[in-house]
């Protein structure tokens, strides 16, 4: 990023992209509460969800009222990646989603923290949190990949199913001045290393769907997202103007 301040519209676009990623994934992880496979994971998943919600609040508040943005925008106005809105599936599916996203977020925030743009202070703080998220995802990818035959099959299924949502992470985002080539290379190297260590296979299919490629950032989402928002927003919308 340059030292000159970014125009407000692109600043908003960047904050919404990152903020919505964090908000939506936090919500999905929050759905695990009371359903985790082991008590330690109740704590860990809630912890990650809380970190992400904290990031979302800082980002959304930097460009508007956090609750108006979270609760009163329609589906088409959300700028998050389609990856983060994907339903949890089983624990392996959730871990695969975590691996792809936390690796991306760590690298992205690392770049932003090293630059001197407006997002640098937030990124510097968040990068420590997301490094833990990445470690959590990597450790579980290893356990599941190199655990039992069943866990191996399940995590491979998760990695395969979500692969086509990963290409979107490397599309340009207005207001986000980053080295996308380096991001993609580092992401691929990092994810490949973990997947191979876990005795799993790096998915070989396309990293983008046929027509929804890169569409989350432009407000095109998948069907489950509408239902997620309906649940998330209904109470707030049922009491217009109320404070909580």
């Amino acid at each position, binding site marked *: 990023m340059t030292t000159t301040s970014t125009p407000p519209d692109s600043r908003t676009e960047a904050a919404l992209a990152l903020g919505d990623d964090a908000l939506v994934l936090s919500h999905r992880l929050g759905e695990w509460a009371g359903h985790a496979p*082991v008590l330690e994971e109740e704590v860990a998943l809630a912890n990650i969800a809380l970190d992400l919600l904290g990031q979302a609040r800082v980002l959304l508040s930097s460009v508007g009222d956090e609750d108006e943005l979270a609760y009163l925008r329609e589906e088409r106005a959300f700028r998050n990646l389609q990856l983060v809105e994907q339903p949890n599936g089983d*624990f392996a599916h959730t871990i695969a989603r975590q691996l792809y996203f936390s690796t991306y977020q760590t690298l992205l925030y690392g770049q932003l923290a090293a630059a001197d743009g407006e997002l640098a202070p937030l990124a510097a703080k968040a990068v420590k949190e997301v490094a833990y998220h990445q470690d959590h995802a990597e450790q579980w990818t290893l356990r599941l990949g190199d*655990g039992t035959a069943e866990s191996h099959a399940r995590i491979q299924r998760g990695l395969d199913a979500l692969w086509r949502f990963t290409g979107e992470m490397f599309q340009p985002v207005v207001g986000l001045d980053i080295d996308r080539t380096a991001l993609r290379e580092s992401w691929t190297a990092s994810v490949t290393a973990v997947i191979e260590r876990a005795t799993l296979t790096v998915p070989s299919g396309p990293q983008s769907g046929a027509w929804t490629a890169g569409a989350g950032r432009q407000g095109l989402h998948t069907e489950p997202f509408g239902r997620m928002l309906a649940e998330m927003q209904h109470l707030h919308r049922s009491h217009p103007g109320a404070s909580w």
Partner: protein
Amino acid sequence: MATRRTIESNEPNDRSGGSLRSRGTEMATAAAQKAAETEPGGAGSTAARAAEQQAAFDEAVAADERIEPRDWMPDAYRTSLIRQIAQHAHSEIIGMQPEANWITRAPSLRRKAILMAKAQDEAGHGLYLYSAAETLGVSRDELLDKLHSGRQKYSSIFNYPTLTWADVGAIGWLVDGAAITNQVPLCRCSYGPYARAMIRVCKEESFHQRQGYESLLALSRGTQAQHEMAQDAVNRWWWPSLMMFGPPDEESSHSEQSMTWKIKRHSNDELRQRFVDICVPQAESLGLTLPDPDLKWNEARGHHDFGPIDWTEFWDVLKGNGPCNDQRITQRRRAHEEGAWVREAAAAYATKQAGAPRADTAATAHGEATA
């Protein structure tokens, strides 16, 4: 943003209590030391030895010393503690369900963060309490198995549903408030690891209680619809909260022995009265009423009188006939069953990493899961 919680390792056979241990591995009470130092054979028979151990234990309890995991203790004391700590741990993890019911619908991001943090705290309390129970020689797996098969209970309050957002506030204010009233005296309980666990639990619970109160206050002072939602929630949660202190003293089966052992320090009715006296002025500040026409200050007693509790409902819910008994235990069992392959994978991976021959021991999965 969230505080990272350090998870203690939970080796099922580790009876030293991990971080719950006070210090060193020596017997903690002077009385127990004295008993241990007695010359073997000097006192004569095994019976005399047993009598001496019992006397040392009684002396330690009487002197308000802490009993530690390696100290001798009567079997019945151990059993009673396991029952109580396990029930407490189970209540923490089942108690996540009625609140988690609202995480995805929380009406503001601030409230959502508070609620998520609370659910996380409860899971943490569960871990901490299972660890305390493990210092008595039982494993978390055994205790969970007893919960899932209905042989151990959790607090009956969680068999009531959270029907509106205001229920989240009412649980914080009333249910956590009642829990604190019950639990603060446990910080002085005679069993060291439990007492120390309770100090931390109580700190966090009182935080939850204030947040619940604050959330209800916002509703009470909000729109008409919000105020009505708050009043409705308080109306539904008040009586079940009073039941949380357990049956009246004359019907409480475990009370007397627990008092002698200083596991328990106040009777059910004393604690219930204390709770009512705390809540009445708080309800007034909230601008809400408590659903009891008989509730009034009694100058002579220096306490509030309150109406009769419907103990029929209490026993009915306890027996399994509450609105959510099946739902709660079914969800818990399902989470556990659906997580079996995850725990097995973690155990298998850990075994491979340790270079040991592969053994399908899910029992080690807990400890290894976050290793």
